[in-house]
C-alpha cells in the first residue's frame, strides 16, 4: 500500500520535472533564445502547461494526505522558499496566459514576457533549494532558537543553493530538448546550440552539488557509491549523453525526447535510491521516513484507491492531449 503510494508520488514528481519542468524551462530558454525563440515557446507550452502543472498539486496532495508530518515539517521550516516558489508559480502562470490571450498591441506584452521569464527561474530555483534542504538535514525538530537558525539556515546554505542551481539548469535543459522538437527550421540550430550548452552546465552544476555535499560533510557521493542502483543510474545517464547529442544533430525528435526523459529519470531514481526511505533528513538524526510519517492505514487505503483509479483516468486523457497537440501530423502548424 505505502509502496504503491510512494511509487505514484515518485511518478508524479518525475512527470512534474519532465513536463512541468519543460514548461518552466521554456521561460528560462526564452532568455537565452531571445525574441527569436518566443513564438516557439508560446506555441509549444500553451495547450499543455496547465495539465502539466497539476502533477505538483498531486504530489502535494499525496504528501498532506498520506505523509502529513512530512508536509507539516516542510511547510513550517521551509516556509520562506516555499512561499517564493509559489510566487513564481502565480506570476509565471498568469503572465504566460496574459501574454498568450491578451490582444496584441502596446508595451504591455514586453512586461508579460519579462515577468514570465524571471518567474520561470524563481520557481525551479526555490524548489531545488527545498530539495537540497530535505537532503541536507539541517532542519530542526523544534522551533526553539533564533529566527535565522530555525527558518533560514536549513535552506540558505551552499548545498541547497547548489541544488537550486542544478534544478533550474535541469529544467532549462529539459525545455531546450523539448523545444528542439517544436522549433521551425530557422530556429532549430539556435535551440540545439542552447541545448548543448545547458547539458554542459548541468554536468558542471551536478559536480557542484557533490562538491557542496562533501564540504557540508553529508557524503552523498559515498552514499551514491554504496548504492548499486545509483551507480547504475549514473552509468546509464553517462552512456546516453553521446547518444543524445547524436540524435540532436540528426534532428530525430522522438529519440531526443525519450533519451532526455530517460536521463532525467536516471537522475531522479539515482537520488531516490540514496534518499529512500527518508523523506526529510533532520538535524537531530530523527529523520522523517516513509514509514514513521505515514497516515493511519484507513487513510492510506483510500488514498491508494483514489490514486490508482485516478491514474487510470488521467494517463489515457493525457495521452490523448499529447496526441492531439504534440504528435499529430499538423502539430507544427500555427494554431
Amino acid at each position, binding site marked *: 500500500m505505502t509502496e504503491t503510494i510512494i511509487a505514484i508520488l515518485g511518478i508524479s514528481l518525475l512527470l512534474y520535472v519532465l513536463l512541468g519542468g519543460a514548461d518552466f524551462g521554456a521561460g528560462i530558454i526564452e532568455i537565452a533564445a531571445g525574441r527569436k525563440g518566443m513564438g516557439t515557446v508560446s506555441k509549444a507550452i500553451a495547450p499543455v502547461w496547465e495539465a502539466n502543472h497539476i502533477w505538483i498539486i498531486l504530489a*502535494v496532495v499525496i504528501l498532506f494526505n498520506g505523509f502529513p508530518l512530512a508536509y507539516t515539517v516542510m511547510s*513550517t521550516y521551509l*516556509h520562506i522558499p516555499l512561499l517564493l516558489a509559489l510566487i513564481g508559480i502565480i506570476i509565471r502562470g498568469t503572465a*504566460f496566459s496574459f501574454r498568450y490571450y491578451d490582444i496584441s498591441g502596446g508595451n504591455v506584452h514586453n512586461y508579460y514576457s519579462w515577468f514570465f521569464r524571471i518567474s520561470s527561474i524563481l520557481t525551479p530555483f526555490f524548489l531545488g533549494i527545498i530539495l537540497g534542504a530535505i537532503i541536507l538535514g539541517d532542519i530542526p525538530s523544534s522551533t526553539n532558537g533564533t529566527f535565522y537558525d530555525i527558518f533560514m539556515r536549513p535552506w540558505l546554505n551552499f548545498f541547497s543553493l547548489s541544488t537550486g542551481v542544478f534544478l533550474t539548469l535541469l529544467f532549462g535543459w529539459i525545455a531546450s530538448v523539448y523545444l528542439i522538437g517544436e522549433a521551425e527550421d530557422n530556429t532549430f540550430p539556435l535551440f540545439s546550440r542552447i541545448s548543448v550548452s545547458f547539458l554542459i552546465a548541468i554536468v558542471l552544476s551536478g559536480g557542484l552539488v557533490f562538491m557542496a555535499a562533501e564540504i557540508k560533510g553529508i557524503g552523498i557521493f559515498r552514499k551514491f557509491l554504496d548504492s548499486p542502483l545509483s551507480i547504475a543510474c549514473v552509468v546509464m545517464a553517462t552512456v546516453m549523453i553521446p547518444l543524445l547529442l547524436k540524435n540532436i544533430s540528426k534532428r530525430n525528435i522522438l529519440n531526443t525526447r525519450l533519451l532526455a526523459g530517460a536521463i532525467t529519470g536516471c537522475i531522479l531514481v539515482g537520488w531516490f535510491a540514496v534518499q529512500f526511505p527518508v523523506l526529510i533528513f533532520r538535524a537531530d538524526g530523527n529523520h522523517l521516513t516513509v514509514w514513521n510519517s505515514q*497516515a*493511519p492505514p484507513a487513510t492510506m487505503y483510500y488514498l491508494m484507491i483514489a490514486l490508482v483509479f*485516478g491514474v487510470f*483516468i488521467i494517463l489515457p486523457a493525457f495521452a490523448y492531449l499529447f496526441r492531439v497537440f504534440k504528435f499529430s501530423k499538423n502539430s507544427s502548424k500555427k494554431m
Partner: protein
Amino acid sequence: MDVLLAARYQMAVSFIFHIVFACIGMAMPWLMFIAEYKWIKTGNEAYITLAKAWSRGVAIFFAVGAVSGTVLSFELGLLWPKFMEHAGPIIGMPFSWEGTAFFLEAIALGIFLYGWNRVNKWVHLVSGLVVGIAGVFSGIIVVSANAWMNSPSGFDWVNGQAINIDPLKAMFNKAWFQQALHMTIAAFASTCFAVAGIHALLYIRHRDREIHAKAHRIALTIGAVAAILQPISGDISAKNVAKYQPAKLAAMESLFKTSKPAPMIIGGIPDTATQEVKHAIRIPKLLSFLAHGNFDAEVTGLDKFDKSEWPPVPIVHFAFQIMVLMGMIMALTGALHMLFLIKWKENSNKNWWLKWVAWVTPAGFIAVEAGWIVTEVGRQPWIIYGIMKTSESVTPMPGIQYSFYLVTFIYLCLSFMVFWLMKRQINSLHAETQYVKQND
C-alpha cells in the same frame, strides 16, 4: 499585527481572490458548451463567435484560478501546519479525488481552447462538457472538505490525537450536502448574473449586435433558475447550521439570548458589549420557524456559549444580511426574467430592464464572498469546530504579516490586471466583429 491575525488575513485574502475564479471555473464552461451546441444545431455564426469569445475569457480565468488554487493548497500548510497535520489524513481523500478531476478539467480545457481546428466538432463539444462536469465535481469535493471543518466527523479525538479515522465518513459529513449544493448553485448564479449583466450593458451600447442579446439570454436564463432555487438550498443550509453549529447561527442572527420563540432580526447594529441589536427590524417567531420549522421552537442564543467561543458577531451578522439581500435581489430579477420569457416578452429588450440587469452584475459575487465570510468567520475561534482552535494551529514562524502584505499586493495587482484584460477582450470583440461585418 500578531501572527494569528496576519495568517487569518492572508488566508482570507487568498480565499476571497480564489473563490471568484473557482465559481467562474465551475459555471462558465457550461455557458461555452451551450453556445457551441447552439451553433452546431442552428448554424448561426453569432453562437460560435460567442463560444470563442467566452472561451478566451475562460482561458484567462482558469489560469488565474489554477495558480491561486495551487497557492491555497500550500498555504494550508504554510499558515496552519498543526491543522494539516491532523486534518490531512482525515480529510485529504477528497483532495486526491479533486486532483483527478482537476487533471481532467485541465486536459479537456486544453482540447477545448486550442483544438478548434484539430478535433472534430463533436469531440470538441464533449471536451467542453467534460470541463464543466469536472469543474463542478471538484468544486463539490473541495467544499465537502470545508464542510468537515464545520461539522467534523469520521474520527475520534483522544488526547489531542485523531484515532479510528474513517475518510469516507469524514467526507460525507453532516454539512457536506447542504454546503456543496448551496455553493454549486451559487457558482452558477453568480457567474451567470455577471455574464448576463456585462452583455446587457454591451447590448445597450451596441444595439445592432445580436450576439449580446443571445449571450444575455443564455446566461440570465441559467442564472435565473439558479437564483430561484438558491433560497430553498439556503433554507436547508440554515436548518443544518441551526442544528449542528448553533453558535454560528446565533451570530448570523445576532441572537444574544436563547429565545422561545425567537424573532428574526433583520439589519441593525449588534453591540457585543451590551448584547443588543440597535435599529433592527424584528419579525416575531420567524427565526424559530426558519431554523426548526416550528413557530414556537427554541433557538439557541450566544448566551449558551462562553464568550471566548463567540465568533466576531458584527462581521458574521453583516455578512449574512448582505448575502441574503443580494440573493433576494437576484431571485426577484430571475423571476422577472422568467416572466419576460413567457409573457410580456417585449420587456426583455427594453433599456430599463437591461440597465437593471447590468446593475445586478456584481450581486452574485458579493453574495458568494459574504456567504464564505459567514461560513469561515462564523466558525471562529475554531478551525475544526469544537476540536481545534484556529490559534492552536497557526504556524510558529514569526513575521507572517510580511507574507500577508506580499500576497495581498500580488492579488491586488492580478485583480486589476484581470479587469483590464477583460475590458480589452470586450473592446477587441467589437473591433473584430465590426470588421467582419464590413467585409460581409
